[in-house]
């Protein structure tokens, strides 16, 4: 997928949908929310990486997601790679 079709809003939407499917509480969603606060663990992040790859063609490896702490970190990482 070309970068021109990937908007930050679209990434944000996909990330929030994914987090909700992992069981995180949408009432707590924000860019500043940490994955720890949302009870999102390493398996969830692995699945989020897979979703990002399928939706946006962005391959994220384990080392890429190890450094991210907040929802905003994840969104920014995906947008920067798309």
């Amino acid at each position: 997928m070309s970068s021109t079709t990937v908007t930050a809003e679209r990434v944000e939407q996909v990330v929030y949908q994914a987090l909700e499917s992992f069981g995180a509480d949408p009432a707590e969603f924000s860019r500043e929310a940490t994955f720890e606060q949302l009870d999102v663990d390493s398996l969830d992040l692995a699945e989020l990486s897979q979703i990002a790859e399928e939706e946006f063609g962005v391959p994220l490896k384990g080392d890429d997601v190890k450094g991210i702490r907040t929802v905003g970190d994840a969104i920014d990482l995906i947008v920067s790679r798309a």
Partner: protein
Amino acid sequence: MTRPDDAVILVTGGSRGIGAACARALAGDGWAVALTYRTSPEGAAQTVRDIEDAGGRATAIELDVTDAGGIAGAVEAVGTTLGGPVLGLVNNAGVRADDLAVSIEDDAWDIVLDTNLTAAFRLTRQALRGMVRARFGRVVNVASVVGPRANAGQANYAAAKSGLIGFTRTAATEVARRGVTINAVAPGFIRTDMTADILQNGAIDAIPARRAGEPDEVAACVRFLASDDAGYVTGTTLFVDGGLSA
């Protein structure tokens, strides 16, 4: 979560022996079965015919499980061919290259570890992607009583199969909450081409049941572990060995 009606299960080394028996048993339980073969297209075709004659769905695909590059394509291809998601995996393909540890050549070590352990890891890694997303999956690794139990002359095989059991236990805990189970069976001496020489050497006397097992007896356990009934069974190893390890 229960198994979707169109779910596909991939059985490696499905052209003969335990793999072919697993393929037939799983098809009988409602899975669409994709079996892989490396050296026996005739055996694979016969297994597919057996399944289809019994009213099941199956396809065969040539795959060297040690070919890391071919694994992703194979998993995708069988799902497309059979028209459903690959939500089951039986890592059965295996080889032996027996010798005393003091004499095992590097090549004999590598091929046994690559085929029996590394290939199972790579296939599981690939298949888990779809299973985790689907919130349902069944992986059954065909280990061996050799590993948990010593068998002189098979240090490479024992290392691979022990490794497979360790992999099973840990990987199972990582994906359990996604409805994905990962278990192992540990066959003892089963009457197949691969064990013909061993069984001729008096191995039966050491088995409490005083007989070799049949491939169908292993397949029945694999079928159970892959079933909805076994949804709360994960990370375990089911010994199918006539009491050998008891």
